[in-house]
């Protein structure tokens, strides 16, 4: 365990958090972008330092580990390891990360005013996308946020000591790179490129995960250390080809290998610092890293050799060939990167010591020169407004320092001495000629390597000769970049030069040797001497340079001859086809998902029915038809009730008027209540009656709010819909009914005749809870928590209706004021006092509410011993209130019942329920356990049968909550419509007139019947005045 391994990750996370803070808050506005770059570069700098601090141990050959249990039940650990290979990559990630942060600060900073004029003219004539310059100095804090997140993922990836840990970070790099490529989110190309990169690397990631899971299940561990030890077992497994195929798919797509390489040039819409970082030095090498890491476990087979060598070889050639004909500097660099990645993958395919020496040298060399060149390209773009080779030229006079950096880096890219890139190419060519490789490779590989080398050299030549040297273009007005901006690429360029020129740096050679050894699986000797005498690699190198030089000289004539093979040689058509297929599928799905909920329902019922029939194993036993059940004398009544239940439900279908259909529904429901009495289940019967009544009230309230014209139109459609659809619905209904019949029969015929649980409740209801009512005891005590949730749902329904109708709907701009005028027959239910309510009814209503309160109190106090409970009590109270709405109208009821605050009732009820249950928990140690507070506190004056117990308090709580919820429903639905407000006012006036005896009841009723209400009212109102 070495906690120091966490430092690099931790500082990057902190840096990302800080950058996130800058992005999200006004804090970022106070810090100029340049300073932000410097400030946040501290994070990678510390990471770099921490890694350097650990390097002596690694160079001495140790492997450092750190891990912590992650998902213990799966045996997963979050673990890190640091060996030579990890260290090489981690140093690149943090080191180049540092440079990129500083550079990005200047890249995104607004330019000085004096530069603006010249830059403006340059941009106006360019046809490439100009570099974004946001008006606000802080808008680009987002870039730092993304790139630090990416840095964290990338560091985690190369430091992971476990395949699952690695995979999580792997996906992290895919996601963060998506954000970075799509950074200019207003640019469609950027979005497309980002999506394409995510699609390909993310898709590869899925394959990778599967491959890693295979690997770790065969190796018996997800840790790299264990997997690497199990190499023989893995290679011997019959799943080896699958495993290798899946992992290679993940790694090769990530590292932009042909034919999936096309995402990388497409991702060049990323800002220059991101491209320099992700697409040269770090992310695209993640696949290379993984393959190098797993080589000792999965390599050394023919399959490994052919898969990687061929993929790498083809990629190398495609990248070199296609890159040469690019005009966009970044696209050119992208293709040369593709080519170089091909080289790296090809090298991992060779199981020779020298190949791994070449691998590590090439990784380092490429990271150094390519990041430098990407950063330089960013400067060119930034200062001239274009990166098109046809428009650039001769800018070395204006930007000598940048030009010098570019030339050094390009020389390294070309593989010319004395640059580090020369060494990389030499070792590559040495690999190609190595005697250990299969015979055919002896010819093909060197030839391919020479051809690719020549073209890459020519690409480097294009950059130098066509962009920086050559004839200056009059329309360009380039400026030298700020010092730190060109120093950032200068550092890797100078290192490339220094490694070549200086005497062999011992530490670096050791690091590379350790990295190569970790990947090769055996010690590798690495020397960094450029000059190794005249040998075959040197000869091949000379040939490549000669051909390359010739190509450069003849470039203007040769480049048009290069046909654009990028489309033909890649999977891009497949990708485009896949996207089109997805669009087609989406089209198809939206045909099915057409928004007609009825269709969804029909499909659900049909599928449920089919599933029950096919896999439900329905086997209805034959049940005796003649068995009448207990109390045979009631059988006739039961038959009758069942008949009424069915016929009333059928009537609700056939009755034309909605109001009658609703009454039929209520009749069916109330018959069920009577059936419950016969069961005998008095508690349910009671609840069913009150709920059925409340449902009826709510239904009628809603019905009055839907204009009759709408309802009639809908009804017409119901029965005048096309005959086939009617038949279809009937068939679905009959089919569902038949399946239901089979289910019920099966259930009834096969159920055990002895209850497993009921005897417990029967025996314990009285002793444990003091309740005679066993059902009540179950609801209130045994399953008290259930009931708590139930009343919360009920109250939430009330609140939801209130929110929906009184708040959300209005906010959405819904208005019901264009609804056709009043359906007078419904008027009494509308919560608007009807002028025809007689004083007798008013007096009755005044009596009813206190009576319901009394009834509710009885239910609360005696519910434990008698039918009824808090819920019934609550609904009864709310029905009393509903009566008042009908009789006195909405406003009047609100005025008279000011104490009835539904939300407060809900809150009080829930608090009381939880409070009493908590008190019980304190006393008894168990939530919702029964406690008799009356006995506990010695309160002796309670009437017989009444207990001050948790049960009673809970009943009261339920009553309060349900009253609140139900009244809230009635309140909301009974609230006068906007369009009714005027009518209601007039109605109120008529009521006043009536009270004064100026209008008789008959006159009002008659006028309403005649439909001349307004006229009569108008006349009478005049009379009143």
């Amino acid at each position, binding site marked *: 365990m070495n906690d120091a391994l966490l430092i690099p990750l931790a500082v990057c996370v902190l840096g990302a958090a800080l950058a996130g803070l800058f992005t999200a808050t006004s804090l970022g506005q106070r810090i100029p972008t340049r300073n932000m770059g410097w400030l946040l570069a501290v994070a990678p700098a510390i990471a770099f330092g921490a890694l350097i601090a650990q390097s002596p141990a690694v160079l001495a050959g140790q492997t450092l580990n750190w891990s912590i249990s992650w998902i213990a039940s799966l045996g997963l650990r979050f673990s890190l390891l640091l060996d030579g290979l990890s260290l090489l990559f981690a140093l690149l990630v943090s080191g180049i990360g540092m440079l990129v942060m500083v550079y990005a600060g200047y890249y995104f900073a607004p330019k000085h005013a004096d530069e603006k004029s010249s830059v403006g003219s340059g941009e106006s004539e360019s046809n490439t996308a100009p570099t974004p310059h946001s008006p606000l100095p802080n808008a680009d804090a987002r870039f730092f946020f993304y790139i630090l997140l990416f840095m964290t993922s990338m560091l985690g990836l190369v430091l992971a000591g476990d395949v699952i840990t690695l995979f999580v970070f792997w996906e992290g790099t895919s996601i963060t790179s998506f954000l970075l490529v799509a950074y200019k989110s207003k640019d469609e190309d950027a979005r497309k490129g980002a999506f394409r990169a995510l699609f390909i690397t993310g898709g590869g990631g899925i394959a990778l995960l599967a491959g890693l899971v295979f690997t770790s299940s065969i190796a018996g561990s997800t840790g790299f250390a264990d997997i690497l030890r199990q190499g023989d077992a893995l290679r011997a497994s019959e799943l080896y080809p699958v495993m290798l195929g899946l992992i290679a798919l993940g790694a090769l797509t990530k590292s932009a290998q042909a034919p999936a390489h096309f995402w990388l040039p497409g991702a060049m819409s990323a800002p220059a610092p991101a491209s320099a970082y992700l697409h040269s030095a770090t992310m695209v090498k993640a696949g290379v890293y993984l393959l190098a890491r797993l080589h000792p476990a999965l390599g050394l087979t023919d399959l490994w050799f052919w898969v990687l060598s061929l993929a790498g070889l083809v990629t190398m050639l495609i990248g070199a060939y296609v890159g040469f004909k690019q005009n966009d500097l970044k696209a050119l660099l992208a293709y040369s990167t593709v080519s170089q990645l091909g080289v790296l993958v090809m090298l991992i395919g060779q199981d020779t010591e020298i190949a791994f020496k070449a691998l590590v040298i090439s990784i380092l060399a490429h990271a150094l020169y390519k990041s430098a060149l990407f950063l330089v390209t960013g400067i060119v773009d930034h200062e001239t407004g274009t990166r098109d080779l046809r428009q650039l030229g001769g800018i070395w006079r204006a930007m000598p320092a940048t030009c010098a950096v570019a030339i050094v880096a390009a020389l390294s890219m070309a593989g010319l001495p004395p640059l580090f890139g020369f060494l990389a190419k030499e070792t590559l060519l040495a690999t190609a000629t190595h005697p250990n490789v299969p015979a055919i490779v002896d010819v093909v590989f060197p030839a391919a390597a020479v051809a690719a080398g020549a073209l890459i050299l020519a690409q480097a030549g294009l950059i130098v000769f066509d962009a920086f040297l050559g004839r200056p273009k009059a329309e360009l007005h380039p400026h030298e970049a700020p010092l730190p901006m060109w120093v950032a690429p200068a550092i890797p360029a100078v290192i490339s030069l220094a490694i070549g020129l200086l005497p062999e740096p011992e530490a670096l050679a050791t690091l590379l040797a350790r990295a190569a050894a970790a990947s090769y699986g055996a010690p590798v000797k690495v020397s960094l001497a450029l000059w190794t005498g005249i040998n075959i690699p040197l000869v091949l190198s000379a040939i490549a340079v000669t051909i390359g030089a010739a190509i450069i000289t003849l470039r203007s004539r040769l480049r048009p001859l290069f046909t654009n093979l990028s489309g033909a040689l890649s999977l891009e058509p497949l990708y485009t086809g896949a996207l089109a297929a997805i669009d087609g599928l989406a089209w198809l799905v939206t045909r099915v998902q057409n*928004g007609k*909920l*009825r269709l969804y*329902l029909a499909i659900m*019922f049909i599928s449920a029915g089919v599933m029950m029939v096919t896999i439900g194993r329905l086997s209805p036993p034959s049940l005796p038809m003649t*068995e*009448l059940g207990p109390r045979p004398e009631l059988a006739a009544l*039961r038959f009758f009730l*069942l008949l009424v239940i069915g016929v009333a*439900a*059928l009537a*609700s*279908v056939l009755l034309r008027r909605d109001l009658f*259909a609703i009454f039929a529904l209520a009749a*069916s*429901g109330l018959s069920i209540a009577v059936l419950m009495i016969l*069961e*005998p*289940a*008095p*508690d*349910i019967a009671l*609840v069913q009656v009150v709920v059925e009544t409340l449902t009826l009230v*709510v*239904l009628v309230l*809603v*019905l009055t709010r*839907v204009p009759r014209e*709408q309802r009639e*139109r*809908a009804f017409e*459609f*119901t029965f005048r819909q096309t005959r086939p659809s009617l038949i279809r619905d009937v068939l*679905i*209904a*009959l089919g569902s*009914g038949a399946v*239901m*019949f089979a289910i*019920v029969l099966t*259930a009834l*015929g096969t*159920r055990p005749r002895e*209850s497993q649980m*009921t005897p417990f409740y*029967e025996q314990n209801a009285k002793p444990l809870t003091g309740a005679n*009512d*066993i*059902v009540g005891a179950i*609801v209130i005590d045994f399953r008290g928590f259930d*009931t708590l949730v139930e009343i919360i*749902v*009920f109250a939430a329904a009330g609140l939801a209706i209130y929110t929906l*109708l009184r708040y959300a*709907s209005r906010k959405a701009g*819904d208005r019901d004021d*264009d609804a056709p005028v009043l359906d007078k027959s419904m008027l009494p239910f509308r919560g608007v006092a009807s002028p025809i309510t007689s004083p007798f009814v008013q007096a009755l209503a005044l009596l009813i509410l206190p009576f319901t309160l009394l009834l509710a109190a009885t239910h609360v106090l005696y519910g434990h011993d008698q*039918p009824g*409970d808090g819920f019934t009590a609550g609904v009864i109270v709310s029905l009393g209130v509903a009566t008042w709405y009908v009789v006195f109208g909405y406003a009047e009821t609100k005025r008279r019942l000011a104490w009835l605050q539904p939300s407060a009732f809900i809150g009080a009820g829930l608090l009381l329920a939880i409070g009493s249950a908590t008190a019980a928990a304190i006393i008894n140690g168990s939530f919702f356990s029964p406690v008799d507070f009356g006995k506990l506190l010695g309160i002796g004056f309670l009437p017989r049968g009444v207990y001050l117990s948790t049960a009673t308090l809970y009943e009261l709580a339920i009553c309060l909550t349900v009253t609140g919820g139900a009244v809230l*429903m009635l309140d909301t639905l009974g609230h006068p419509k906007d369009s009714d407000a005027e009518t209601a006012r007039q109605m109120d006036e008529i009521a006043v007139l009536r009270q004064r005896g100026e209008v008789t009841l008959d006159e009002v009723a008659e006028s309403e019947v005649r439909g001349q209400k307004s006229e009569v009212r108008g006349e009478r109102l005049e009379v009143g005045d």
Partner: protein
Amino acid sequence: MDVLLALTISALFAIGVFQLLRRNLIRSAIGMAIVSNAINLFLLAAGAYYGEVAAYANEAGQRSDALPQALILTAIVISMGGFAVVLSMLYVLSVRYKTSDSDEVKGLTH
């Protein structure tokens, strides 16, 4: 008795399904209520045994099965709450789209 009860339950269910499939949203709502009635009856029928007296500790004789009754109580309350929400949504649809025909309600965008 069991067979008749099963017949009633399935008839209720079929009628409810038919109502649910109507274009008329009010009828669909009625269908929902009928289906929940059918399910409640099914729960009741699924009790282990029939009783002769109500499930009260102080009653002598074969008591009815208390457990399904407790479950039905909860089910009734919950379906009542859900039903009320459905109805209020029906009202909002009627106000917003000026229709109670489910096929005319399309593109629930705002």
